[in-house]
C-alpha cells in the first residue's frame, strides 16, 4: 500500500480524537502496530511521515513508532500454527492448504501521545 492512505487515516483519527477530547494542541508520538506480512515498509512510511508532519502544526514534532507483529498461520487440518513468513499458505506439518492467517496483517494505530 502506498503511504498516502495510511497517513490520511492517522490524521483523520487524530482529528476525531481531538474533537472528542478537549482539543489536542500537540502530538508527541503515534504508535503503529504493523504485521509482518502487511505490505507496509517501515522505513518507507517513516520517510513519508517525516515529510508529512512538517505540514501540520500540531504534528510537526511527532515521532512515528512502529511495532512489528509476528505473522502466524493456523492450519484447520492438523490444528497446528506455524510462522507464515517461512511457510506461507501451505502447512509445513501436514501440507494442507486449509490454512488461515491468525495474525500478521495488522495496520493498527495503537496509541497516540498528545497534549
Amino acid at each position, binding site marked *: *500500500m*502506498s503511504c*498516502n*492512505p*495510511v497517513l490520511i*487515516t*492517522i490524521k483523520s*483519527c487524530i482529528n476525531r*480524537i481531538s474533537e472528542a*477530547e478537549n482539543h489536542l494542541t*500537540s502530538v*508527541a508520538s503515534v504508535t503503529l502496530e504493523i504485521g509482518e506480512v502487511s*505490505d507496509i515498509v517501515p522505513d518507507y512510511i517513516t520517510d513519508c511521515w517525516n515529510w508529512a508532519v512538517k505540514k501540520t502544526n500540531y504534528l510537526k514534532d511527532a515521532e512515528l513508532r512502529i511495532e512489528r507483529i509476528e505473522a502466524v498461520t493456523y492450519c484447520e487440518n492438523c490444528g497446528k500454527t506455524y510462522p507464515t513468513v517461512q511457510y*506461507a*499458505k*501451505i502447512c509445513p506439518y501436514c501440507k494442507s*492448504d*486449509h490454512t488461515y492467517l491468525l495474525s500478521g496483517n*495488522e*495496520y*493498527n*494505530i*495503537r*496509541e*497516540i*501521545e*498528545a*497534549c
Partner: protein
Amino acid sequence: MGTEQTDKFKIIQVKRSIFEDNNKDAEKLRQQLKEEKTFLLNLMSSPGAEKTSTLLALSKELSWKVKMGVMEADIDAAVDAETMTEAGVKSIQIHTGGMCHLDADMTRQGLTEFGTKDLDLVILENVGNLVCPAEFDTGAVRNMTILSVPEGHDKPLKYPLMYETCDLMVVNKIDVLDYFDFDKEKAVEYAKMRNPDIDVIFISAKTGEGIPQLAEWILKNVKEWCAS
C-alpha cells in the same frame, strides 16, 4: 479508547485498524446494493492487461441480457469512459485525485453520481495496480483480476493479496501464448496456492475466445445476488 496521564503528554489508546472505517463502509454499501438488487463487480489488474478491452468484448455478450453500466476509475483522463460510451455502454469516469485505488466511500460517490438503481450489473474498473486496490474493500459483491500472458505466470506469487481477494482470475491475451514463456498450468497452480477457491477462465479480449464463458460466470453471479 483509554487515556493515561504522563508528565505533560497523555497517552490515548486507540487500538484501531487503519482499515476499520473502510471495511464498515464497504459492508454498508453491499447492503444497499442488495436492497437495490444491483450487482457490483470490482475488476482489477496491472496497467495494460486490457481491462477496458475485456469490458468492451464483454459488453457485446452482456448488454442485451442485463442492464449494465461501467464505472471507470483512473488517476486522470477520461479515455476509458469515452471508449465505453462510444461502444454504447452506460459509463462514468471517476478520478481518484492521485490515489492508487478506490475505497468504499469513493465507490459510493461514483455509484450515486452514476445512478445505479435501474442497473442489474455495474462493473467497476479499478485503477491499474496489483497492490493497493486489493487492500481496500470497495463494497463490491465479487472481485475479479486479469492476468495477461506477457506479465508472466509468476504474478500470483508476487502479489499474493490480489489473488487471495479475488473470486475469479481471468488469464487474458492467450492468442499470444506462443510468443511468451507463459505456463498456463503454473499460473493456475500459483493462484490456487493463494486461494484454493478461485475460479479461472482463459480469454483473449482481441479474438473473443473465452468471452462467452466469462459472460456466463458474471451472469450466474448476478442472478444469484438478485434472487437471494
